[in-house]
């Protein structure tokens, strides 16, 4: 297209019909026209095929292929038509100065400052009252808007539904018996009654891991928390609250699949790696007379990610 580049840009309006700027860029328009016609025919066939595929309820990929092919062929043909067969110019257009003269600017400023400002200045009391009223309305309007959106957090984030004596049940609601888990097994448990609720699933979820057959102490002061080798930790990652769903038995770690925080199961689930700042809270367990696993008490701290009021 060196021809195109040699030409000087001209103004579009008032060109004579046979001006070279109005001629197509292509040196061989007839040939290009044939190619474009082929594109359009292919596009028409594809689009019609799309209708046919839809009609007979063909596989989704045939719908996409015919629609995509049709649009692409029609589009490529149209772009080629514009690029090779339409007036190629180049044309030039002047930019009009958007800025106005200083007088015009001053006139606008004057009408705001003098006419408008004068009115307000003369009636300071009215202006102040109106402004104050609107300001109060703006602030007051926020309250119902925000308060309707949801409840206040209060102590919701501080507690779970685990209570003294809560039975640990699995997701089907079956109580976990001390003989249920083999050493090295893991199951997600909930306080009985919450396994089907949103809150139970999202907040109370707890991993129950059996690491041995003997009572196990993870940290000082937790001597009775792991009866018969059962350890229970909150399943909510202390980083962002993802379920800590990966249990690596050989290394005895729990891994969060979201951001790879790793918690040491044998040592009170303190974070060994990754962005989690705190250990997973441990739930103190006991085995009752019938052999069921129950909670000695609720968690001694809020579970899950950090927040301002977390003391």
């Amino acid at each position, binding site marked *: 297209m060196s021809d195109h580049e040699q030409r*000087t*840009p001209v103004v*579009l309006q008032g060109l004579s019909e046979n001006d070279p700027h109005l001629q197509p860029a292509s040196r061989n328009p007839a040939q290009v026209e044939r190619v474009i016609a082929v594109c359009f025919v292919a596009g028409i066939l594809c689009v019609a095929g799309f209708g046919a595929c*839809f009609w007979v309820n063909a596989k*989704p*990929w*045939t719908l*996409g*292929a015919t*629609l*995509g*092919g049709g*649009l*692409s062929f*029609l*589009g*490529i*043909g*149209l*772009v080629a*038509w*514009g690029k090779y067969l*339409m*007036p190629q*110019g180049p*044309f*030039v*257009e*002047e*930019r009009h100065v958007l800025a106005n003269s200083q007088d015009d600017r001053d006139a606008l400023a004057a009408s705001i400052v003098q006419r408008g400002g004068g009115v307000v200045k003369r009636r300071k009391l009215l202006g102040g009252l109106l402004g104050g009223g609107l300001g109060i309305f703006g602030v007051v309007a926020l309250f119902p808007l925000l308060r309707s*959106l*949801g*409840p*206040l*957090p209060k102590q919701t984030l501080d507690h779970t539904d685990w209570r003294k004596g809560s039975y640990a049940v699995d*997701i089907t609601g079956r109580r976990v018996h001390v003989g249920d888990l083999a050493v090295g097994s893991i199951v*997600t448990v909930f306080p009985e009654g919450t396994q089907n609720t949103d*809150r139970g*699933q*999202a*907040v109370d*979820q707890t991993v129950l891991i059996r690491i041995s057959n003997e009572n196990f102490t993870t940290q000082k002061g937790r001597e009775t928390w792991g009866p018969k080798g059962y350890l229970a930790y909150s*399943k909510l990652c202390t*980083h*962002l609250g993802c*379920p800590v769903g990966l249990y690596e038995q050989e290394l005895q770690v729990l891994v969060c*699949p*979201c*951001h*790879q925080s790793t918690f040491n199961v044998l040592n009170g689930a303190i974070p060994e790696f*990754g*962005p989690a*700042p705190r250990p997973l809270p441990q739930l103190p367990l006991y085995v009752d007379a019938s052999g069921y696993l129950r909670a000695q008490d609720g968690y001694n701290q809020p579970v899950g*990610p*950090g*927040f*301002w*009021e*977390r*003391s």
Partner: protein
Amino acid sequence: MSVDVPVTKRTKRQAQGPYGSIGKVIDELDDRLGVAKGGRTFMDKIFPDHWSFMLGEIALYSFIILLVTGIFLTLYYIPSQALVTYHGAYLPLDGQRVTEAYASSVNLSFAVRGGLLMRQMHHWACDIFVGAIVVHMARVFFTGAFRKPRELNWSIGLTLLILAILNGFLGYSLPDDLVSGTGIRIAFSIVLSIPIAGSYVAFWLFGGNFPGTAILPRFFILHVLILPLIMIGLVGAHLFLLVRQKHTQFPGKGRTENNVVGSPMFPVFMAKTTGFLFVVGGVTALLGAFAQINPIWQYGPYVASRISYAVQPDMYMAFLDGALRVWPSWSFHSFGYTIPFEVFIPAIILPGIIFNLAFLWPALERKFTKDNALHNLLDRPSNRPKRTAAGVAILAFIVMLFFASSTDLLANFFHVSLEEVLIAMRVMILVVPLVTYPITYKICKELQLTKGGGKRKTPGIVTRSEEGEYASTPSPTYVDDVHSAPAPTEVPCYIYPAPEETEELGGTRVVDR
């Protein structure tokens, strides 16, 4: 009445004047609305031709595809968290208790004709939309198109990028599958991490503690109505400013600060751009047909106590996910209060800094270069080495964060420990931008010295003399490659046009090779 003039097609046509029925319509319209002058100006509006101006069009057209396919999806999607038992076309899920949102998303994929294609096109168009905005923004940045008088349009575009990312996240969350539900859980925890107000804001947004009952209906109305309305308004404003201020253009033959050289709106630009709309739609449809994206039936429904391996967000959220992965576990805890810095800094402060820097960049550049003139001619990136180097360094930083969101996949792929990958990413996120800055700066400086850098090569003509000696003479340069020398302080400001003769003296030179 008059019998001697027979009413034929020809006489009718003559009665309508030289422009036929179109002319008649224009007459009638102009009587009432006065459209002739403005309409002609619009038809004759000149668009400069450069391939890089097409990037914004990709964004615009994928937005249109999003609207069209999105309207289709709203007809079948149900934004409800009520539990139903799934009995549908996808047998592995048969009999499972799932939310209506999930069931309707699976149903519209399998039971509605064209539904799967529309869903996949919608998701692909979203990724293309955000990607095209970023690339378009990079073009505007590196060529200096954001400079005065276009700072406002830069801000509008940037707002559109943020809204696009936000709306992408909301839409991604709607099917209520296992992966997207985990994403919402993370979003809740991020809001929770804001000091003082965090728990209140999170409870208001979600209508209670996670998961609450309000998420899907609220996300739905935000995703399909409120944010799209705002975005349509902003896209309109973006295009209006573009028409009002006219396009920028690269320097070249006959191109000055005070004109635009290119093709007219009608018919040339209109044909090309409409064709391009079809091509973008076609490519999206082909992707939707052949490249599977977000197979929610494989992930399963969201259950808060379940999780999938290798959880990753869509590509436009990846830089945030990467930041969350590499930031150390520094939590502040004192006086009975907690500030979760391990979340607050990478997820809120960091994107805040990045986007605010982008918003302020035009003003910062004006301040530091003391260049307050109006600019309509674009920079070659190498002629602004500091800006280019800074842009490349910031991009490198974001790209590194992007890769950091795949630490687990990288560890698996290279068979190295997760810890090593994480430490390597932490180092690279800091070092790579610091290294790319001087390298880019140096490359720009070198490019400035290259004679005719960026210009097309002209053939050298090799001749052999009678004595048998070979000689090479360069052929003439393309006329279009004549360019005006960059002289930022001398760039004419078109409010106060410089005297005529400076145009000649202004340093136009032929680049000889």
